[in-house]
């Protein structure tokens, strides 16, 4: 049962992150996920200091707010100062993360939020973080419920906004010409990334969130030329990674999050290598087709 809960948690995070990551990659904004997952730290600490508890809702709000603040600052530095996006990201998230660390060490040193928890999380504790109702019924691990809701919200968001997300990613100028607000969809996507990140990382840690955001979509991108297939392959990969990552950690008696991240990287390298091996034939076929 422990294995089931951990694998399920990992899969829920991986699928949610992967779905959003597909659009981040296609918008050439992969590192924004990295930035958001770090920049949420001060928001979490401030929410904790204000509410005095580790309840999920204030944490989500605090993290969502600083996550959006980070994306706003990145856009602002990029547009107003003419700074390259990656430089804007580098400046913004290290600054916000450092602010978070100072807040923790200065004001919240005695509680169980610390840098390690934020960065690495501990998915192995998921099965003991139980949701117990008022009359004492044990409903199963709390994170599983939270992450299921997040996955549902993200899936609905992508389902309803698929057309707009696709168009604003592919051709923002044309989208604006149609009257579709590129800024609105940009910030909706960023908000989704912020909330996903913060609700995921208390169980799996920021590093694994980043790995899940980019790893499976990047692998899927190598495998297909169709956005819907890319999303589908990402989901399958995400579940596969969670499953194999857990059993690898079980065998090696190693960090579960670490093993899942390694499998994520392994999948990418594997697909990339296979593609390189069969590429000569493939590219030849394409060239011939274009010539004809």
């Amino acid at each position, binding site marked *: 049962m422990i294995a089931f809960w951990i694998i399920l948690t990992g899969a829920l995070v991986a699928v949610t992150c992967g779905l959003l990551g597909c659009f981040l990659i296609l918008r050439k904004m992969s590192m924004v996920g990295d930035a958001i997952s770090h920049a949420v730290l001060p928001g979490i600490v401030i929410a904790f200091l204000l509410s005095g508890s580790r309840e999920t809702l204030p944490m989500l709000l605090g993290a969502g707010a600083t996550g959006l603040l980070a994306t706003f600052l990145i856009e602002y530095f990029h547009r107003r100062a003419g700074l390259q996006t990656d430089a804007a990201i580098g400046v913004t998230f290290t600054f916000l993360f450092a602010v978070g660390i100072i807040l923790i060490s200065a004001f919240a040193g005695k509680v169980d939020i610390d840098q390690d928890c934020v960065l690495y999380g501990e998915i192995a504790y998921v099965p003991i973080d139980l949701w117990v109702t008022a009359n004492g019924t044990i409903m199963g691990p709390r994170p599983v419920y939270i992450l299921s809701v997040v996955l549902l919200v993200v899936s609905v968001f992508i389902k309803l906004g698929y057309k707009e997300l696709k168009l604003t990613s*592919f051709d923002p*100028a044309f989208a*604006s*010409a149609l009257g579709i607000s590129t800024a609105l969809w940009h910030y909706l996507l960023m908000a989704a990334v912020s909330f996903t990140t913060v609700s995921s990382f208390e169980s799996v840690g920021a590093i694994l969130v980043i790995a899940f955001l980019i790893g499976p979509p990047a692998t899927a991108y190598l495998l297909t030329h169709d956005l819907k297939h890319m999303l589908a392959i990402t989901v399958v990969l995400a579940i596969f990674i969670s499953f194999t990552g857990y059993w690898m950690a079980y065998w090696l008696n190693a960090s579960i999050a670490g093993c899942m991240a390694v499998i994520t990287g392994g999948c990418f390298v594997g697909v990339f290598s296979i593609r390189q091996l069969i590429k000569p034939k493939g590219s030849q076929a394409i060239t011939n087709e274009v010539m004809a």
Partner: protein
Amino acid sequence: MIIHAQQPIVEVHDLTVSYARKPVLWGVDFTLPSGCIAGIVGPNGAGKSTLLKTIMGLIPPSSGYIKLFDRPVDEVRSRVSYVPQRESVDWDFPVSVLDVVLMGRYGKVGLLRNTGARDQAIARDCLDKVGMAAFAKRQISQLSGGQQQRVFLARALAQESDIYFMDEPFAGVDAATEQAIIGLLREMASAGKTIIVVHHDLQSARTYFDWIILLNMRLVAAGPTDQAFTDETIQQAYGGRLNLLSQVGDVMEKRAFPSREN
């Protein structure tokens, strides 16, 4: 030399646009009649693309206003189509040719709804018009430059608009595609559509367009091609730009010796 249209469908009034406080367009003021093919012509950096983007509302003007069908652009977006520069998008994006053309239907479909069978039929019909019907299922990274431009054109056609703004549709396309596109534009114009094209080739401009907007940060000339596109106005627009003088010379030479013209 600015000639205004009688019943303008496009009205640009005293438009000034600046990037980072540096003006790139100064007091541009012209009108266009309906059913014409108009060319926006001028040297590099003249602000041709900026003018188009400002008309589409993608760049806010510093002063002045734009009216299409005598109304602000935001009220008539469903009747206006925009073809961005081909290089402005990532052609490795995982979508098919048909997907891209269907994007032209998104404005009509509306928020949170999906394109239907009718949109599919229109998209395929538009692909057929640009001679790309056989490529519908092809992934866009496998297209040549000319094919990419045809796909963009098909997407604009799928919008079923009345005004079409096109940014450099002839840039980097083969001669066959260029002829196919201009043929299609003429067909559209005779069906009452108004087409505004950013163009940089002076020679073909004279034959392609029946209305010319000659631009070099300021408006140099605007009007029917035979009146607005003269040696004098071309020199005004391109004067002082040595690298382009030869091109201007070429045009004048061809006018002096018409027998050599193609």
